[in-house]
């Protein structure tokens, strides 16, 4: 966490402490939160973990964080992440990787907390803050939650305003909370969400009191098990955990139904066209003219090229190049348009499933946390981390990861729940049923 303390928050707090006894305390009064560095925080450096935004102090506050302050929460600091949220291990951060507070039993190797919201996940798991904001474009809330034994939910696309959140892939980016219990994420999400005219894709719908769904009976709910999520090479422990999750929900009165999402295996390759395409367009704004790093060159173009070469890290450059390529003349139809059509197929798969079930249960990630450096040389191997999470972003659906057990090395594993559009409520009910059954109490041994 950054040690810079936003004085402004504390100034805002001053009058509120006197309001609290009068019964006017906000629903998050005094709740100490960490904020992913992708959120613009007024007067507090917001870098998206990129050199190109070093020193950038927004003159405005993101809608999501402003909503949290409105309800009385306070900011402890900004949290590290993968650069521009592009990564699954936190190793693409310009400021160095975040370490997972968890370590395998008998091992000292530093593990990844996952990504891109790795700082959020680690800070929550290590109990440095009560909860944290995070964002999820392809799994960046759920995979780190699974790797750190925390709860994370990516709400329906459009639930939370994207205004003031540094853009990565605008049709997929969505903010959500990470916390140590399902109920805490519910309370945080009710505060973060809400219609915002400043984001044209923000949904003009009421925000439910999500906490009221926690602990509700799940009897009679139909839960789908997508058979395509049984991928080759999935560790037996994860398979077993999934079976356990099915048993827990059966015991709680759910009806378990096998469903098919036939286009699942095409979600990642479609994502790796769509997300880089949108990123190459969004990141065109970093030209060294109005804000961010400028490296002077011989002329205007040279200045652009030098500023961007110096400011962006390798993974960000790789994705910008892929995105530029798939959008360039002659390749647009073959790659970009094709990916958008496959995206439709994936969304249709879910629509078919909703005819038969109310929610889906899957593993969150194909493995437990791996060692820092283990996959950083192979982009495609790294991308496969998001195999179970990315479909949800493409379809715009809500998805939640709940800690459900540990592997042989004592590392946490998560189960994912996927719901219908705007039906986060069912996920909170099912999530708290799993939480209760799993009774996950393991904590990382304190070595830091």
């Amino acid at each position, binding site marked *: 966490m950054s040690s810079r303390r936003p004085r402004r928050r504390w100034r805002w707090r001053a009058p509120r402490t006197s309001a609290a006894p009068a019964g006017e305390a906000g629903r998050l009064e005094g709740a100490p939160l960490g904020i992913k560095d992708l959120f613009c925080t007024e007067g507090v450096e917001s870098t998206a973990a990129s050199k190109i935004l070093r020193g950038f102090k927004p003159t405005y506050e993101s809608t999501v964080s402003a909503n949290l302050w409105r309800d009385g929460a306070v900011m402890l600091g900004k949290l590290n992440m993968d650069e521009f949220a592009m990564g699954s291990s936190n190793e693409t951060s310009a400021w160095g990787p975040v370490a997972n507070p968890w370590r395998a039993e008998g091992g000292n190797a530093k593990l990844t907390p996952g990504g891109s919201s790795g700082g959020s996940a680690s800070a929550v798991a290590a109990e440095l803050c009560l909860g944290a904001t995070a964002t999820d474009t392809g799994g960046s809330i759920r995979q780190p939650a699974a790797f750190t034994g925390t709860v994370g939910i990516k709400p329906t696309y459009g639930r939370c305003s994207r205004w003031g959140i540094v853009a990565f892939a605008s049709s997929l980016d969505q903010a959500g909370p990470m916390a140590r219990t399902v109920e805490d994420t519910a309370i945080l999400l009710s505060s973060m969400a809400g219609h915002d005219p400043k984001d044209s*894709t923000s949904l003009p719908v009421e925000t439910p009191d999500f906490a009221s769904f926690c602990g509700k009976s799940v009897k009679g709910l139909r839960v789908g098990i997508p058979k395509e999520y049984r991928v080759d090479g999935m560790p037996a422990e994860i398979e077993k955990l999934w079976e356990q999750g099915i048993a827990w929900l059966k015991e709680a009165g759910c009806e378990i139904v096998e469903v098919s999402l036939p286009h699942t295996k095409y979600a990642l*390759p479609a994502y*790796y066209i769509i997300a880089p395409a949108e990123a190459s367009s969004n990141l065109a704004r970093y030209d060294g003219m109005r804000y961010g790093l*400028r490296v002077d060159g011989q002329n205007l173009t040279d200045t652009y090229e030098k500023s961007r070469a110096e400011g962006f890290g390798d993974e960000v450059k*790789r994705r910008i190049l892929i995105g530029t390529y798939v959008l360039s003349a002659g390749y647009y139809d073959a790659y970009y348009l094709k990916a958008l059509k496959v995206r*439709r197929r994936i969304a249709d798969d879910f629509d078919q499933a909703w005819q038969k079930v109310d929610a889906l249960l899957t593993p969150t990630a194909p493995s437990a946390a791996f060692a820092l450096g283990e996959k950083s040389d192979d*982009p495609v191997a790294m991308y496969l981390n998001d195999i179970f999470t990315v479909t949800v972003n493409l379809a715009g659906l809500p998805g939640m990861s709940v800690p459900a057990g540990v592997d042989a090395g004592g590392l946490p594993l998560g189960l994912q729940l996927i719901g219908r559009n705007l039906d986060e409520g069912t996920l909170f009910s099912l999530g708290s049923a799993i939480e209760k059954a799993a009774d996950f109490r393991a904590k990382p041994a304190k070595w830091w």
Partner: protein
Amino acid sequence: MAIDAATVRKVARLARIAEPEDRLEPLAKELSGILNWIEQLNEVDTDGVEPMTTSVETALPMRDDIVTDGGDPAKVLANAPKANKNFFVVPKVVE
């Protein structure tokens, strides 16, 4: 589809990212690896499928065409690498 160093040079130019000559070959290899993996999308029959550009199916909201914000140049220029009075200072654009 494999892409070569010349294509990387062209794409890097389009993306306004300076890539040194000795990086073009390795980048071509990396990007080809990713694109080859992406090729599997061709297995999907997408005839007659409408491209999906967003998961929000509602029409874009319209608002009155009136000024709602502005008049604060100090805020706009607060993070500028170079500024002078109320202007951004940029390299010479027209020769």
